[in-house]
Each structure stands twice: as structure tokens, then as C-alpha cells.
């Protein structure tokens, strides 16, 4: 087994026992990136020199006998909407193509302090707006299970990097499904924690009441290890939760006795693949066989959730993206007046989907429409939260699908924004309610594409989600899912 095939937990153990050095580990992932990334394009910026420097430093500290963080020397990939000091942070947008942050996001500070080498910045839909990573202003990322298909989005680059062994761990962000849906389409585990559980300081804002940083990993334990590092209170984020964090990696052994699981019924939702429903039902039976009490739960407002989300998120986006005016940072166009300069900068700097959302949001917030659109959507959000409160009176865990279909073809939905929005229908209400939610592999379609389950719990119950993810991991063979990258040169020799 090569180093890039190992889980973060195994790498951590091998590093601590000095079986391997961090430089060796990082070299293995960098070689893997060189081999795979030209075909799939998960990265916007690769940082091999920085990663090797940081690995060398950790090796030296270990040799000196310093006490290090368990993840010290284990590399990580970072979504390119998370600010990294002196390292280009583009949000996959022309408007930030040359933006160099003068500060680190809090999650980056803690990663650096723990000694995790950063392998690079991963591709996304521009400003995290999208469900396929096709809205990147630079290039789309491809799905490793079938390169003619999308990896999901917006954290498509992070999901692909982890799925193919280009990184053992990655950070993503999830506003309305942007970690869970790509994790589902790429066959990895993606956790969106409770809103406020991980600091948003330095995450480039899209929709502030919904944005949440989270983890992408191959196993639940790896996700738990990264959560242990990045979760917790941050005085720099006023929406950061002050609650103590548990030790996520300990006691992950699943105990399902008497666990009350609510199976989500989607009804006859448009565009829902029956193979996905079957996978969810299979997962419910497995839980039941192992002692869980499974009942049906209805979240009747799921359809309305999508409508409310596509008013609330664009409204917040139109306000947040007001800052891109070509004055303090980013792309700048010409104009005789300041207004002409602003308008041309934004018109030329933003891509079509970002413009659509700015337009919807500006409209929904404008005089005469505010009450009917934005205010109404915020009231519907309250009703959705009530739905969840009722569901959690009866159940500890909700089980559903992380995406209505397996990966779709590149270009299939780019001309029809509404169809693209529907890709997030399973993920959005969890986001509106602010509850933690996780995607974990739950089988394959007849065409060999991964199908993702979605697990949802009460606020702060990330550990329960990780335990349940661990359960499904133990049920599958092999536990580590890896795509056969037969389309790479050399065919089967690249199988991992």
C-alpha cells in the first residue's frame, strides 16, 4: 500500500511511530497529484514547495522530541474560498483571480499551528454558487468514477482530491449542500457541522446565515480527527458557538441499540432516481438489523425549502458581493464615472451564475418586493426549523439521500439553472435549520457510480453522525472506496 492510499488516521500513527517522515508522506501525495490532477483538475493552485517546507519543519521538530498534534505532518487540501495568507485565494472567480489575502482564515491558522502541510487550493463553483463545479471561471473538475460526469459542487475539487488519494483530508464549505452533495457524487464522507461550530472567519462570504466550513475525508475517524482540530469557539467570528467540543475521535464505535432513526420519505419528488431510494431503504434495514428503531419521518416543507433557500441565499449573496467594486481588491475595469467603473468591473468580473444570484437577491430585497419574497422566505425558514424540532422529538437521527441522483453528465444542467438548483433539494432544509448533516457512501448505481446517504442530527450532535457513518463504513466491503482510474495512462496500474 502506497502512502497516498493510507487514511489520515494511519498516516498519523505511522508518523508518530516514526515509521515514515512527513516529507515522504507529502512527496507521495504530490506525486499522486502530478499523476491524477491533469486529468481531473481538482486544484486551482498547487503548493508543493510550501507543503514540503512545512513537512520538513515538522520532521525536524519531531526529531527534537517535541510534542506534536496527532495530525502534524499529515497534509490537507483547502477549498479556494478559504483565505490563505500570501497564497492566492480566487473563489474560482475572475474577479479575485489575483487576490492575495493578507491574513489567514482561523481554520488555516489552526491547521498551520498543528503542522498540517497544505497541498493546494481546490476548485469550486464561483463563490461556491453551484452544484457541479462547472461554474468555476477557470475549468470544470471531473468525477473520478466517470470523467464525463461532474463531481458535484460547489466543493467538487475537495471531494475529488480526497476520493482519488491526492489528499488524505480536505476542507470544504457548505451553504446549501456544497460539501454533502459532492461527497455523495464522489463516494467520500463529507460533514457539514452545526452552524457556528467551525469559525467562518476568513471564509469568503456567500450567504452568511448559511455558510459553514466542514470536512471531507475517506473515513468517519479521519473526519473526526480534523473536526477535533478545526471545531471550537473563535472570538473573531461573532456567530461562533461557545459550547465545549467533545473529543470527536474517541468512542466512535457505533452502538445502535435503541437509536431512534427517522427515515425521510421524499414522496414522488421530480427527478429522484429510484436506485437512490433503494440505497436509502437498504441503509434503513441495516440500521434496524443492528438494533436501531426505524420509523418514517415526514418533513413536509422540503419542496418549499428549495424555494425559500433560493430567495434567502441570493439575497444575502447580493449584499455580501457588494464589496467587489474594483477599488480595494480584485479585478478592475474602466469607466468615466465611478458608477460606470463599478458596473463594468462587476459585469466583466462575475460569471453567469453569480450574476443571476445577485439579480435575484437584489430583486428580492428591493422596495415593494421585500415582504413578499425575502421576509416571507425568512418566515418559511422558521416553519422549517419547527419541522425539525418536531422530528427530533421523535428521532435521534434522520436518514435520507445526499443527492437525488448519482453524478450527472458535464453540461447536462448548465443551460437550466432550475434543474441545477434541484440537485441540492435533499441538502437545503438541513442548512436552513442550521443542524449538522453528513454524507456517507451508501452503495453504487447500476452504472457503477457512488450513491450517498445523508444523516442529520440535532445541533451539536456531530459525533452521533460520525458514529453512524462509521457503522456504514464497517458494513461495506472494502471500507475504503477508491475509483479505478483506468482512463489514466497505464490503465489498471493506477488502480488504488
Amino acid at each position, binding site marked *: 500500500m502506497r502512502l497516498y492510499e493510507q487514511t489520515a488516521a494511519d498516516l498519523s500513527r505511522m508518523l508518530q511511530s516514526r515509521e515514515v517522515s512527513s516529507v515522504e508522506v507529502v512527496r507521495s501525495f504530490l506525486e499522486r497529484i502530478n499523476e491524477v490532477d491533469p486529468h481531473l483538475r481538482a486544484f486551482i493552485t498547487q503548493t508543493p514547495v510550501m507543503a514540503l517546507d512545512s513537512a520538513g519543519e515538522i520532521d525536524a521538530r519531531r526529531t527534537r522530541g517535541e510534542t506534536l498534534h496527532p495530525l502534524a505532518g499529515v497534509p490537507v487540501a483547502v477549498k479556494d474560498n478559504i483565505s490563505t495568507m500570501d497564497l492566492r485565494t480566487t473563489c474560482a472567480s475572475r474577479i479575485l483571480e489575483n487576490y492575495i489575502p493578507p491574513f489567514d482564515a482561523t481554520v488555516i491558522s489552526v491547521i498551520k499551528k498543528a503542522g498540517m502541510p497544505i497541498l493546494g487550493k481546490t476548485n469550486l463553483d464561483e463563490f461556491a454558487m453551484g452544484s457541479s463545479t462547472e461554474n468555476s471561471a477557470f475549468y470544470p473538475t471531473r468525477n473520478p468514477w466517470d470523467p464525463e460526469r461532474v463531481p458535484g459542487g460547489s466543493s467538487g475539487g475537495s471531494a475529488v482530491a480526497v476520493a482519488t488519494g491526492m489528499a488524505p483530508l480536505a476542507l470544504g464549505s457548505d451553504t446549501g449542500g456544497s460539501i454533502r452533495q459532492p461527497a455523495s457524487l464522489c463516494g467520500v464522507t463529507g460533514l457539514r457541522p452545526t452552524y457556528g461550530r467551525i469559525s467562518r472567519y476568513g471564509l469568503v462570504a456567500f450567504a452568511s446565515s448559511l455558510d459553514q466550513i466542514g470536512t471531507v475525508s475517506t473515513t468517519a475517524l479521519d473526519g473526526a480527527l480534523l473536526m477535533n482540530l478545526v471545531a471550537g469557539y473563535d472570538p473573531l467570528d461573532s456567530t461562533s*458557538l461557545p459550547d465545549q467540543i467533545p473529543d470527536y475521535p474517541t468512542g466512535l464505535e457505533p452502538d445502535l441499540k435503541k437509536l431512534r432513526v427517522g427515515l425521510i420519505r421524499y414522496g414522488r419528488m421530480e427527478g429522484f432516481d429510484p436506485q437512490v431510494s433503494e440505497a436509502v431503504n437498504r441503509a434503513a434495514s441495516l440500521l434496524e438489523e443492528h438494533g436501531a428503531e426505524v420509523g418514517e419521518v415526514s418533513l413536509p416543507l422540503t419542496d*418549499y425549502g428549495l424555494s425559500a433557500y433560493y430567495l434567502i441565499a441570493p439575497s444575502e449573496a447580493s449584499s455580501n458581493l457588494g464589496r467587489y467594486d474594483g477599488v480595494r*481588491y480584485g479585478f478592475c475595469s474602466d469607466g468615466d464615472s465611478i458608477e460606470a467603473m463599478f458596473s463594468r468591473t462587476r459585469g466583466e468580473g462575475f460569471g453567469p451564475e453569480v450574476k*443571476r444570484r445577485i439579480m*435575484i437577491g437584489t*430583486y428580492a430585497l428591493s422596495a415593494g418586493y421585500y415582504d413578499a419574497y425575502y421576509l*416571507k422566505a425568512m*418566515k418559511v425558514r422558521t416553519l422549517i426549523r419547527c419541522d425539525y424540532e418536531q422530528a427530533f422529538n421523535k428521532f435521534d437521527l434522520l436518514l435520507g439521500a445526499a443527492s437525488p441522483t448519482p453524478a450527472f453528465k458535464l453540461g447536462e444542467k448548465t443551460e437550466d439553472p432550475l434543474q441545477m438548483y434541484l440537485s441540492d433539494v435533499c441538502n437545503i432544509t438541513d442548512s436552513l435549520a442550521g443542524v449538522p448533516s453528513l454524507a456517507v457512501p451508501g452503495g453504487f448505481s447500476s452504472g457503477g457510480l457512488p450513491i450517498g446517504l445523508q444523516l442529520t442530527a440535532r445541533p451539536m450532535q456531530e459525533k452521533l453522525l460520525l458514529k453512524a457513518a462509521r457503522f456504514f463504513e464497517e458494513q461495506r466491503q472494502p471500507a475504503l472506496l477508491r475509483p479505478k482510474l483506468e482512463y489514466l495512462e497505464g490503465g489498471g496500474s493506477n488502480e488504488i
Partner: protein
Amino acid sequence: MPVDFGKEVDYVARLARLSLEPGEKERMAGQLSEILETARRIQELDTTGVEPTSHVTELPAVLREDRIKPSLPLNRALQNAPRREKGFVKVPRITASEQTEE
């Protein structure tokens, strides 16, 4: 009832300070009408007496002591400004012509 966004595009684009090409405008008008029609489905729900949720955390407003802390040095704060001069950002003329009618 369909939402006709065609008439609104210019007005909303101006509010958003977004210059759109003619072809872009037409395409967007059609797409936005469709999106808003779906979004309007929330009107079917009765929300009488329901408080709006603008935020999901129950946290009170977070205040800190009003004390001066180190901040970014000027050159760092301006390092990304596309046009700058003598420690300032540069923009096109903001005020109208100085010649005013007496």
C-alpha cells in the same frame, strides 16, 4: 401567475451595479422569471403570526471591549488595490464637474 422579469432587468441591474450585455439581459430575464416563479411557491404557505428567522444561533449580540488592537499595516491593507497612490486607493471622479451654475 407568471412573473415577468423582462421589464425589471434594467432596473435591478442598475441597483446591483451590474452591466449586462444585450444578449445576456434577454437570457437572464427568461431564467429569472422561471426561478422566481418557483420561489413564489412559498406564498402558498400560511405564515400568519410566524416570526422570521434571520439567524439560527440563539446567541445574543456579541460585544467586546472597545480597545485598540494591532491592525494590518497600510501597505498590507492596500496590497490588492488595483489602483493606488501615496497610500490611498484611486477611483474615477466621484463628484460632478466643478463648474456649477451661479
